[in-house]
C-alpha cells in the first residue's frame, strides 16, 4: 500500500482546491482564494451556439487548467502536465508517480463518479481531484469538493479519466514540479487583478459584463421564443451552473472577495479591502438572482413578468460589475 503524506482539505471549487492542496503539499502555503485570485479565475462567457444538457452554454470560469496555469505563470511555478491516448499508459504514469511520492491532480468527468450525488452526475468533464495513494487496486482520492476522502477502483478511475464529450480529459494528469525560493506576491497579485478586470471588461459581446448583458437580453425573450416550458428549463440550467458546488455567480464572487481581502493585507494595499466588501455585496445580489429565478418553479403565473425582472436584475449586476472592475483597474 502507498499512502502519501497529503492533507485533504475541502474547498469551494475543484480546480482551486486541487491547486491549493497540491501546492501546500509541496510546501507553498497558499489558500484557495489566493489560487483563484492570482489564477484570475473569475470569468463569464456565454456560448449560445453550444448546447450543454440541451440548454445554451454558459461558463463562469476560464477553460479547465487555466486557473492553475495562470497561477503558475505569475508565481514562477512549474507544472508538469500529460494527456494520453493509451489508457494503460495513463495508469502506469500515475502508479509510477505515486511510487515516487508525487500526489497527482487529475481532470475527470463527473458522470461516472460513484461518490457524487445522482443529481450532480452529468457529462461534465472539467472536474478535478487528487490521487494520493493506492491500496490493492483502490486509489485513494482527495476530491476537494467533498468533506471526506474517497476510494476508486482501477476501472472506476479509468472510466472517469477517459470520459467522453466536450472537454474530454484524455487522462489529463498534472502536478507541480518546481516552486521558486522567492515569490513577488505584489507583482503577481496586481497582474492577476488587472487580468480579471480586462476579462470582465473585454470588448467581446459574449464575454464578461457584455456577455452578462447579452444573456439578460436573451432571457427576456426566452418565454416567447422557445415557450415557457423550455424557458424554465434553460433558466434552471443557468442557475445550476451558477451555483453548483461553489462555482459561478455568488460562490465565485465570495471567493474573489476573500482573495481581495487576503491580498490587500498581504501586500499592504488597504484599498482592496473596500473592494472586497463591495464584491461581497455583489455576490449577495447574485444569490438574490438565483432565489428570484427559483420562484419561477413555485408560482405558475406571470411568467413574462418574472423573466422581465430577472433580465433587469442581470443588467443591474452587469452595471455594478462594470463600474466595479473599472475602478478596481485604476487602483492596481
Amino acid at each position, binding site marked *: 500500500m502507498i499512502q502519501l503524506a497529503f492533507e485533504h482539505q475541502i474547498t469551494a471549487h475543484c480546480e482551486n482546491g486541487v491547486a491549493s492542496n497540491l501546492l501546500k503539499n509541496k510546501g507553498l502555503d497558499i489558500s484557495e*482564494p489566493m489560487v483563484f485570485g492570482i489564477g484570475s479565475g473569475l470569468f463569464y462567457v456565454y456560448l449560445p451556439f453550444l448546447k450543454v444538457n440541451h440548454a445554451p452554454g454558459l461558463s463562469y470560469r476560464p477553460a479547465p487548467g487555466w486557473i492553475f496555469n495562470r497561477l503558475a505563470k505569475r508565481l514562477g511555478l512549474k507544472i508538469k502536465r500529460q494527456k494520453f491516448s493509451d489508457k494503460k499508459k495513463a495508469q502506469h504514469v500515475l502508479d509510477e508517480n505515486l511510487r515516487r511520492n508525487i500526489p497527482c491532480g487529475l481532470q475527470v468527468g463527473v458522470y461516472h463518479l460513484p461518490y457524487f450525488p445522482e443529481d450532480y452526475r452529468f457529462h461534465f468533464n472539467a472536474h478535478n481531484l487528487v490521487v494520493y495513494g493506492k491500496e490493492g487496486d483502490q486509489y485513494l482520492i482527495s476530491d476537494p469538493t467533498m468533506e471526506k476522502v474517497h476510494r476508486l477502483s482501477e476501472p472506476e478511475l479509468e472510466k472517469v479519466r477517459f470520459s467522453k464529450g466536450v472537454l474530454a480529459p484524455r487522462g489529463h494528469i498534472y502536478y507541480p514540479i518546481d516552486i521558486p525560493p522567492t515569490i513577488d506576491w505584489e507583482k503577481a497579485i496586481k497582474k492577476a487583478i488587472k487580468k480579471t478586470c480586462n476579462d470582465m471588461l473585454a470588448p467581446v459581446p459574449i464575454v464578461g459584463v457584455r456577455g452578462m448583458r447579452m444573456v439578460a437580453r436573451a432571457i427576456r425573450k426566452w418565454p416567447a421564443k422557445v415557450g415557457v416550458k423550455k424557458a424554465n428549463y434553460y433558466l434552471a440550467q443557468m*442557475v445550476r451552473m451558477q451555483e453548483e458546488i461553489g462555482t459561478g455567480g455568488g460562490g465565485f464572487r465570495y471567493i474573489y472577495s476573500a482573495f481581495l481581502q487576503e491580498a490587500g493585507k498581504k501586500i499592504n494595499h488597504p484599498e482592496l479591502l473596500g473592494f472586497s466588501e463591495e464584491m461581497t455585496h455583489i455576490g449577495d445580489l447574485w444569490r438574490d438572482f438565483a432565489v428570484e429565478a427559483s420562484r419561477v418553479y413555485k408560482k405558475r403565473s406571470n411568467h413574462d413578468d418574472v423573466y422581465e425582472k430577472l433580465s433587469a436584475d442581470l443588467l443591474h449586476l452587469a452595471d455594478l460589475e462594470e463600474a466595479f472592475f473599472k475602478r478596481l483597474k485604476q487602483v492596481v
Partner: protein
Amino acid sequence: MKKSEVPQDNGRVFEKGSRELYYAVDENGEYTTALSTGWDAKNIVQDHTMQEIQERIDTARAGVKAGHVSPIVYFMELRRMDWQIVSDYTGIWKWRVKRHAKPAVFERLSDKTLKKYADAFEISIDELRNYKGN
C-alpha cells in the same frame, strides 16, 4: 454573505454524506469559511432539472414502445447523453447514430455495432436489443 447566513437547507450533496464549503464574513467583517448542507434555491432548480430529465426518459420510452424510435434513444436519455456524447463514446459518427435511432435501421445492426452502443450505455447487447419500452 455573513457566516450566520450560510444556508443549511439539506440538499443532494448532504444526502450523499457531504457538505459544501462557503466563503463568508464573520461578525468582524473578516473572511472565513463555513460548511453548508444545501440551499433551497439550488434544490428547487435541481429538482426541476431532474423532472425534465425524467420526462425526456419517459417520452423516449413511449417512443420505443410505439415503434417510433429505437432503444438507442431511450438509453441515450437514460444516461443523460445527447447525440454528440453517444457519438464520442461509441466512436460512431453522429449522423449514423441518428440513423440508428430509426427502429428499422436498428433491427439490422450487427452485433459488433450493437456492442459499441451497449458498452457506452453500460448494458448488455441483449438488454439493448430486447428493450421494448415496457
